[in-house]
């Protein structure tokens, strides 16, 4: 039987993902946290893991390079990927929030003269404001989004928060919750059909430890 390839996201979801696989008996003694390697084989030879940027995980799965993947639902909401999403893994919970500098937070949304919103999530941001009849210019950033209001690049930001600590340290407060997100198991459409039994076994096992 061919190996099943699993795409895992670099960053905060990586170690809880590996932990879930370990709990269903898929161990990788080969794996070293500090290593720059991006491909690892599980000890039993049934799984291969590839480590990708979170926003790239659905791409690897959609193209069938990986059969399954783990990714935050924020990524799936932001980009339209043709993949199956059979399981909420119930970890990595966080919120996508609209945040503003503390001194402007009390003004309320419709009265605010919001012109520019910096975010890693331009699609969700545009949709949120459009549904409220507000036009904004979204500025796509690739990281450290909190920097944008501090430096005057934007008036507000839309970003993912877990504890809210980073926002606080940068003088920002959440003024609205746009969505909640958690880690999802995603599956390539063709793999889900051709390797149905294996995928069901994996989904069921992961569901039990979620």
């Amino acid at each position: 039987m061919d190996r099943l390839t699993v795409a895992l996201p670099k960053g905060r979801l990586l170690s809880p993902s590996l932990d879930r696989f370990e709990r269903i008996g898929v161990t990788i003694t080969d794996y070293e946290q500090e290593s720059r390697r991006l491909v690892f084989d599980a000890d039993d030879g049934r799984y291969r893991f590839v480590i990708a940027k979170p926003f790239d995980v659905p791409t690897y799965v959609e193209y069938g390079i990986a059969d399954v993947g783990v990714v935050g639902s924020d990524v799936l909401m932001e980009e339209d990927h043709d993949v199956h999403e059979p399981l909420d893994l119930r970890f990595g919970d966080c919120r996508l929030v609209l945040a503003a500098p503390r001194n402007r937070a009390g003004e309320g949304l419709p009265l605010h003269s919001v012109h520019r919103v910096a975010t890693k999530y331009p699609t969700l941001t545009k949709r949120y404001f459009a549904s409220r009849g507000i036009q904004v210019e979204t500025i796509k950033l690739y990281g450290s989004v909190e920097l944008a209001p501090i430096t005057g690049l934007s008036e507000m930001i839309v970003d993912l928060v877990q504890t809210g600590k980073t926002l606080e340290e940068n003088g920002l407060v959440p003024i609205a919750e746009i969505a909640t997100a958690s880690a999802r198991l995603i599956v390539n459409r063709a793999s889900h059909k051709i390797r149905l039994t294996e995928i069901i076994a994996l989904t069921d096992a992961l569901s039990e430890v979620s």
Partner: protein
Amino acid sequence: MSGRAVNTMPAGVTDVLLNDAQLKTHTESSLRGSFEACGYVEAITPTFECYEVLLAGGIDPEWMYKFSAPSGGILALRPDLTTPIARVVATRLREAPKPLRLYYIENVFRRPDPKRGKQAELSQAGIELVGSSDPAADAEVVAVAIEALQRLGIDDVQLNLGQIGFFQGVIEDTTLSEPEITVIKERLDRRDREDLARFLEERELPSDKKNSILEILTLCGGEAVIERASTLADNNTSAAALENLAEIYRILDEFHLTDRVVVDLAEVRGFGYYTGLMVEGFSRSLGSSILKGGRYDDLIAKFGYPCPAVGCAFDIDRIATIVQKEKLAALPKLDALVRFSDERRSEAYELATALRVEGNRVELEVTNRSEEDAVAYAREKGIAELIVLEEDEKRIVPLENAK
């Protein structure tokens, strides 16, 4: 008009060259051979049609490249071939003896989109079996598809068979609105059980109905799936759909093809025009489907001639990439390059023609380059020998070691 050459290309289109072109042609001619062996005849329809005609097919207008005719009417590039063929059947082929077996090998055009692919121009081959509503016709299309893909060396082909009537039956006697049904379909399509369960929880539906909709997600597997599905839906539409699918399956069993077939009632996505069987084909070597099809008994009627039909379309571009993985054919090499001095042009042409008639692939020089340059060119292209005709001599320079 001088300056920089314009050589950009629109998104979603591609040049196919050398080995890729050869593989594509090989794929097409193999499929053509398979279709013709089963009695299918070719139909060639125009690249663009009246927009209304394509719209009648029920294809999402968003898919289409539209433009205006000089007369002011709206035209569109065909996004599929089934709709144009339905138009042809309802007009010029109305009187033709049925069943009609038609095939096509053509390009279709769709606006690139994540849900339907990034290619704007796709090569499709397809068959349409027109004029029979018998499950035997559905089974024939499935059988032709399996055999055609196997003939291309794709031994692990898997065809998933669904029946649109099953899902229709499950939802038709409910109070669900059209937008609600769209949400349900979208969640079934993502295989997102929890999200679907949450959505159903908030609807006013009998709990066994909620359960039936949720269980659709598990209806994928062998023949036993049909049995299990029938316990979930006690309405006439679903029952008739399952009976039809069971009959198609029985026939495929008699053809000894069920090892290539999976019953898949979890797939509710499809073109708007399907009314019965839905087929999707896969291979392990590829992360997306290589074939799609189904029964469309109401489509030809939209052009004024009620007539049942079933068919499927092969994605040539994707299939060519797996053929490539399994048997990469070497580009045929040229046998000779003929180099000559001006006074022997007539003789050189005669020699080249004689060799060509014998089945050799021969190039005749058209430039005035040195013999050294001609040899370098022939080596680079892997030409087997250089034939030199100059003054009184005829020399053959063998280049076998050329790579």
